[in-house]
Each structure stands twice: as structure tokens, then as C-alpha cells.
């Protein structure tokens, strides 16, 4: 208990403009509300019924007035529409320099994977000033990733990747909420976003990352699951070589083309027959139910590391551990 707050903390590159728009909306709507309330109260008193015999003259209407109070709300609405649409596109479009991280929603927790292999649950550590792009998916029902201090929110869907991004501007600790009702412990699917100084973030990132980068884990899986047997790098396997595929256009049967993005790669692992690459037999087994969402992200991360214009192939685990993961991530992030 304490005093009543009116605004959540403002800690991202978009939160200022969202707040400005909010104030604009509050001002405009308060003006019209007070105008209507004032008129109603004024007329309720001024023209109150004085005797039961009162019979006021009829006033049928006024075309000019109708036009005025149709046009004004419409025009004001269009200003709101335009400004808010502009903000929406800003909130939804990740900038070029964004580094990627992965989030998986699961009843009732958030699992975060950093590209260097660091994993956390219900916590997300990010450096201040750096744009972060989160690729998200769900293992079960629909969740929604909401950080009020950043004014961003995006639903997290099973069977699909969605993206949200933010550039934190203030060091601190901020609420992370699930905002799509997801069952019994929905209100327990909460966590904290820690915005840190870049140096602190680097220190945090280096601590205890254990089993190698995401791409390295993906490569290990790629071999364990037997993918490498057919998807040989020399192109002579029963499946197409996957070197340089991620982020490239892929030719399907009957001449159709599809961009090999995360969505396509995911589908081709889980249900390979859906969009078969031209010239190959549909002999790959279905991996639906055999790999978890986390593992899928690792596999995709590996494929991206050997994908189009890859600069730091994860196939060379010799990449010095001291190298700042953020820089590596930035370079790789640009790869796709």
C-alpha cells in the first residue's frame, strides 16, 4: 500500500512516444467527456421541468450540426488512427542492429535462451541501449509476452514463431507478465527483466554457460538425431545440403519458391513432407513430438550459423570464449 501510481516505469526507446500518445488521447477524450458532462448537467438544471404542464417547443434537428458532429469525431479519429499506426509499426519492426534471443512459453514459465548458450527461466537479462529481438514460441497454449515498462507485448503461439523487440533505455528491474490467459497458474507466469550496464551484462553472460553456444548445441543435436547422415555438407546425401540454406530462397517442387526462414525450417523438421525441396524424395521421418521447442530453436540456430553469408560458423568451436558474445551475436544476427 502507498500512494497511487499513474504510469508504469518508462524504460524503452518507444515508451516515451507511447506515453505521449496516451496523454494526447487522455487530453482529447477528457475534453469531449467534460464538454458532454457539462452540457448535460447545465441543461438538466437550466431546463429542468418546472411544472407538470410544461410543453416545450419541438426542435427537430439541424443538418449543419449533424454534419459538424459527424465530421469532427471522424477527423479526430483519423489523427488518432494515423499516429497510433505509425507507433505500431515502430513497435513491431525490429531495427537492423537488434541482437536475437529466444523465448519459449510453457505452462507456466518463460524459458529464455541466449545465443551463447546461456539459459534462464522467468528472468531475462539484457544490456541497456542494445536493441533486443526475441523470437518466441510456445510449447502448449497461447501466451503473451508483456513488459509494461517497455510498452511492448506480443502473443506467443504454439506451432509458430512470433517476434517482439525492444531497446531498453534505463538500467533496472522490470515486470514481465504473461497476458494471454493460459490456465491455472496464469498469474504465476511472471518474471523479471533485468536491464544491465553492457559490462555487467557481459560479465553475467560469461558466467556458467556450460554446454556451448546455442548453435553448437544445435550442431550436436544435428548429429545425434542423424540429420547429418542425409543432409551431407557435400550435397551428395539423400537430403539437400543445408549449408547456405537458411535465409535463402528455396526451390520447391512445381517451381514454387519459399524463403527458408525460421518458420520454414521449423516446419520442415516437424513435418518434412509439407514443402518438399525440388528433386528430393519425401523420405525424411516426421519429427513432430520428438524434438522440443527449445531443441528446435537450437537446430535452427545451427542452420542459421551455416546459412546464407554466415560469418562465424559454429562448426568451428574454436571461437575464443573470451570473445564478447554480444558482438558475435550482432554479426550473426545480420546474417539472416
Amino acid at each position: 500500500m502507498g500512494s497511487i501510481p499513474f504510469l508504469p516505469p518508462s524504460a524503452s526507446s518507444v515508451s516515451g512516444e507511447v506515453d505521449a500518445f496516451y496523454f494526447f488521447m487522455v487530453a482529447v477524450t477528457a475534453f469531449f467527456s467534460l464538454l458532454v458532462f457539462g452540457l448535460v448537467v447545465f441543461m438538466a438544471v437550466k431546463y429542468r421541468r418546472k411544472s407538470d404542464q410544461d410543453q416545450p417547443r419541438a426542435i427537430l434537428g439541424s443538418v449543419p450540426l449533424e454534419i459538424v458532429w459527424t465530421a469532427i469525431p471522424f477527423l479526430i479519429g483519423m489523427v488518432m488512427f494515423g499516429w497510433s499506426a505509425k507507433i505500431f509499426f515502430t513497435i513491431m519492426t525490429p531495427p537492423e542492429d537488434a541482437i536475437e534471443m529466444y523465448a519459449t512459453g510453457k505452462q507456466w514459465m518463460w524459458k529464455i535462451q541466449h545465443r551463447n548458450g546461456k539459459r534462464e527461466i522467468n528472468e531475462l537479462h539484457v544490456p541497456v541501449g542494445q536493441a533486443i529481438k526475441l523470437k518466441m514460441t510456445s510449447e502448449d497454449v497461447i501466451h503473451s509476452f508483456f513488459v509494461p515498462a517497455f510498452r511492448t507485448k506480443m502473443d506467443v503461439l504454439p506451432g509458430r514463431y512470433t517476434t517482439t523487440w525492444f531497446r531498453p533505455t534505463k538500467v533496472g528491474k522490470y515486470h514481465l507478465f504473461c497476458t494471454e490467459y493460459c490456465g491455472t497458474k496464469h498469474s504465476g507466469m511472471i518474471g523479471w527483466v533485468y536491464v544491465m550496464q553492457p559490462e555487467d551484462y557481459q560479465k553475467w553472460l560469461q558466467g556458467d554457460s556450460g554446454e556451448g553456444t546455442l548453435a553448437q548445441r544445435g550442431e550436436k543435436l544435428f548429429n545425434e538425431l542423424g540429420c547429418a547422415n542425409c543432409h551431407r555438407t557435400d550435397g551428395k546425401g539423400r537430403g539437400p545440403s543445408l549449408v547456405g540454406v537458411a535465409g535463402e530462397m528455396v526451390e520447391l517442387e512445381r517451381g514454387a519458391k519459399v524463403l527458408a526462414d525460421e518458420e520454414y525450417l521449423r516446419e520442415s523438421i516437424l513435418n518434412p513432407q509439407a514443402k518438399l525441396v525440388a528433386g528430393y524424395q519425401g523420405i525424411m521421418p516426421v519429427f513432430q513430438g520428438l524434438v522440443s521447442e527449445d531443441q528446435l530453436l537450437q537446430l535452427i540456430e545451427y542452420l542459421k550459423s551455416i546459412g546464407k553469408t554466415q560469418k562465424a560458423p559454429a562448426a568451428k568451436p574454436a571461437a575464443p570464449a573470451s570473445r564478447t558474445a554480444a558482438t558475435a551475436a550482432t554479426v550473426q544476427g545480420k546474417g539472416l
Partner: protein
Amino acid sequence: MSTVSSTIPEAKPNYLTSDFSIKSWLLTTDHKRIGILYLISISLMFLLGGILAGLIRLELLTPTGDVFQPENYNKIFTMHGVVMIFFFLIPSIPATLGNFLIPLMIGARDLAFPRINLLSWYIYLVGGVLTLSAMALGGVDTGWTFYTPYSSTYSNTYVMLTALGVFVSGFSSILTGLNFIVTIHRMRAPGLTWFRLPLFVWGHYATSLIMILGTPVVAVTILLVALERGLRIGFFDPALGGDPVLFQHLFWFYSHPAVYIMILPGMGVQSELIAAMSRKKVFGYEVVAISSVAIAVIGFLVWGHHMFVSSQSWYAGLVFSFLSFLVAVPSAIKVFNWTATLYRGSNAFLTPMLYAYGFIGLFTIGGLTGLFLSAMGLDVHMHDTYFVVAHFHYVMVGGAIMAFLGGLHFWWPKMTGRMYYEPLARLSAVLIFVGFNLTFFPQFILGYLGMPRRYHAYPEEFQVLNVLSTAGATVLAIGYLFPATYLLYSLFKGEKAPANPWNAKGLEWEQAPSPPPTFNFDHTPEVHEPAYAYAPEKEKEVVHS
């Protein structure tokens, strides 16, 4: 409406006294009796939904989830939504006041299909019993929105039984809508042209269009969920090859227009109250009439504004956002016209008018806060927070229920033949207004702060506002208990009502006694003047600014 001699015979039996047997009520085809049957049913549903709301506010008094287990809390808010929306708000005004008044207002003996009207009440009862039995067996926890794949695959509660109840009750609203449309087209009294109809009838006509065009879609959607849940046919669950977002499109294609099913009849009531209580024709009558239809039509094309962050295409979002701003315009027009009607009127401080004033205030806030949510860039932040909860309660409780109560008071003498105790009624109208604002205004602030909906427990910094909200809910609950008491009391001890206690215009007041006889009118009325012809013809003026 020709002037009629004020000596309406009193001794003849009315629709209430014509037959006292239980059978005569349960097998009645009289639209007035069916209206009363509906009134009793929805009042019980409102009581139930209200108690559930009280339990929600009780839990949210403190940040920790200390009153209910999370699974029970989830069932409580789900049942609150299901009961209030499908079994109270959707039938509230149309099935009670609409049923009772439309034939009276248009000079007809009954609705076009009296037996279908009775059937619709029985269907409503079956739906209600199914849903309530699901609640008695252990409840359902999907939220009233039944989002997949949670509802189709993951929830272990009585989803199908609840959904079946909703599915069945949908047919009652389809039949009511059908009945109204045919009645309004075919059974208007001689001389009662479309632009002489009371705006209440226009509002119900627009509502009926949505009922018959929208409700089948939600029925189909529920059927698909049932097929997925029962037979594992994949429509919505990606694990079965379905698309989880498809459900949201189908659901909101009905459920957003359903919001207009709930508010359009309220707007119709509002027009009647304002006209009768100010003794003036509603300002810009034609514009108000057409705007109801405009809301119904555009309202079908805005469903995607529930889905800006659902992964829906950004450009689809753009169109939905634009149309949502567009649908706000006819609502704004109505508010301005109601306000303008008060100008140089004879505005009575009677209970129905107090509700009408309350409606203008609360609906204005409810409508304007809808703009915040239509604005894509802001909705990203506000979506699924308490701001949304506050917004739709301002429209649904502040709008629809205020109109329902205002209308109930206004037509109570006609329906029951008794007057209620006015001072107490005024007091409770004020109490409800204050309690309502105290309950829901803090929730706008909570929403912007980021408190998500459907949270059983919440961070401590949100507590002060939640305490205010719970305090308001207490006042509101007491406010609602007043009418329940004095209206029932008036049935036995109330002063006998004359045919037209408000000196209002309209066939139901001028040509039928209170309460009306079974077939409403002795002779088919003839109409020679427009609606709300309070002032003599020569005293009419058109404002030119």
C-alpha cells in the same frame, strides 16, 4: 397517433389477471408474459453473475491469492463472464423490454410468431440449465472467450457442457431476432411508417440483424471446438495441424458484433427515456435511427481489433483499426443528439431520467476509452490489461445495464400496473452511479500500469487501486439490492399506475391501459403523426445555424 379519449376501461382483465394458472404462464404465447418469464430468468442470472463478480473483487482485495485456489478463481471469472454475457446481457433488453414493448409500440396484437417466441424462452432455459449444470459439476476455467488450444486440448474442466449451453442459448437469440425482424416489417399499424417508428424499435431492428447474422457463426465455432475436443480433428490445435489464431477470428466475428447486440437495445431505451422525460422529439431523429443500422453493419467488420498482437497481419490490423475509429462515429452522433434533445426541454428529475443522464456519462467514457484500444500503437500496451476490463464494463454495465434499469423503471407501471417508490428509486440510481465509477475507474489506471486481466494474484504496487475497486463494488452491490427490493414491494403495495403516468407519447402509453390486456388493443390503432409528437404541429422548428 391520434388523440384518444383518456377514459380507458379499467375493469377488463389484463394480461396478468386473465388467467392465474401456472399452465397459462408456462404455455403462454403472449409476448408480454414471455417478456416477464424472461425478466425473471435473466434477473436470477444477473444475481448469480453478480455474486461471482463479488467473489472476484473479494479475491483481488489483497495482492496474494489467499481466498481461492487459482483453479477456482479461474472458474469464478469464467462463469461470471459466461453467465453475464450469454445469459444476461445478450437477452437482457431485447428479450424482456423488447418482447414486451415492440408489439405495443407498433400497434400489433403480438409478435409475428408467438409460439416461436415461447420456444425461444424454453431454448434459453435449456441452454441455461446446461451451463449451470456444468458449473454445479465443477465449473469451467477457459475464460468466457474459450481461446484455443487451451479450451480444445488443455483444459480439464467442463468445457463442452458449458459451450453446449452457450450453443443452445444462441438459438434462442436467433429466434428472437427473426421474430422481431418479421414483426417490424409486417405488423406495423396503419400509418406507422419506418420513420415514424420509436427509436427503441429501430435499435431492436439493428440488434436483430446482428442476432440472425452473427450467432450462427459462434455456433459453428463452438461445434468446431467440440469436434476437436471430442474427435481430435484438428482445426485450432497446431499439434493436430490446426491454426490457433483461426479460432480468434471466428470467435470475434460473432463476439464483437455481440457487443452491439448488448448496447444497441440500450441506445434504443435511452432515446425513449430522453424523449419522454424532456417531452421533446429526439433531436435528429432520422440520424439517430440510421446510426443504429450503421453501427450494426460496420460492427461486423471490426473484429480484428481484438487481435493486433495475435500475429495477425499488420496490414489487416491497419484496416481493422481504421474501421474501429469509423464505428465510433455513429455512437458519437447519438450522444450528441441525445444531449441536444435536452436543449430547451422540460427535463424531469425522475428516476428514468437519472438513469438516462448516467447512461450518457458512462457510455461516453466507455466509448471514448474504446478509441484507446482501437489505436494500434497504444493497444499493444493495453491489450489484455485491466484497461480493457474497465472499458467494456463501462459500455456493458455503465451503458447496457443503466439503460436496462432506466427502461425497467420507465415501463414498470405499464408492465405491472404499479408505481414504485420514487425517492428510494432516485437514491439507488445515484448509489449505482457512484458505486459503478468507484469500481471501474481505478481499473483504467491499473490497466495502463500494466496489470493483466484474469490474474489471481498481482504485484503489491497495484493494491491501492484494487482496494478502491472492491470498495466501489460493495457500493454497487448495495445499489443493485435497492431496486430488487422496492420493485418487488411495489407489486404488492405500490400505488396503482394510470395508463400514462409520464404523459409520454407512444402507442403503448396512449392506447393501452396499464397493464395491457392480452391482445394489447381493442382496435388496431391508426397512426397519423411522427414519433414523439409532444409539441403541437405548428410549434415545430428546425434549427439553422
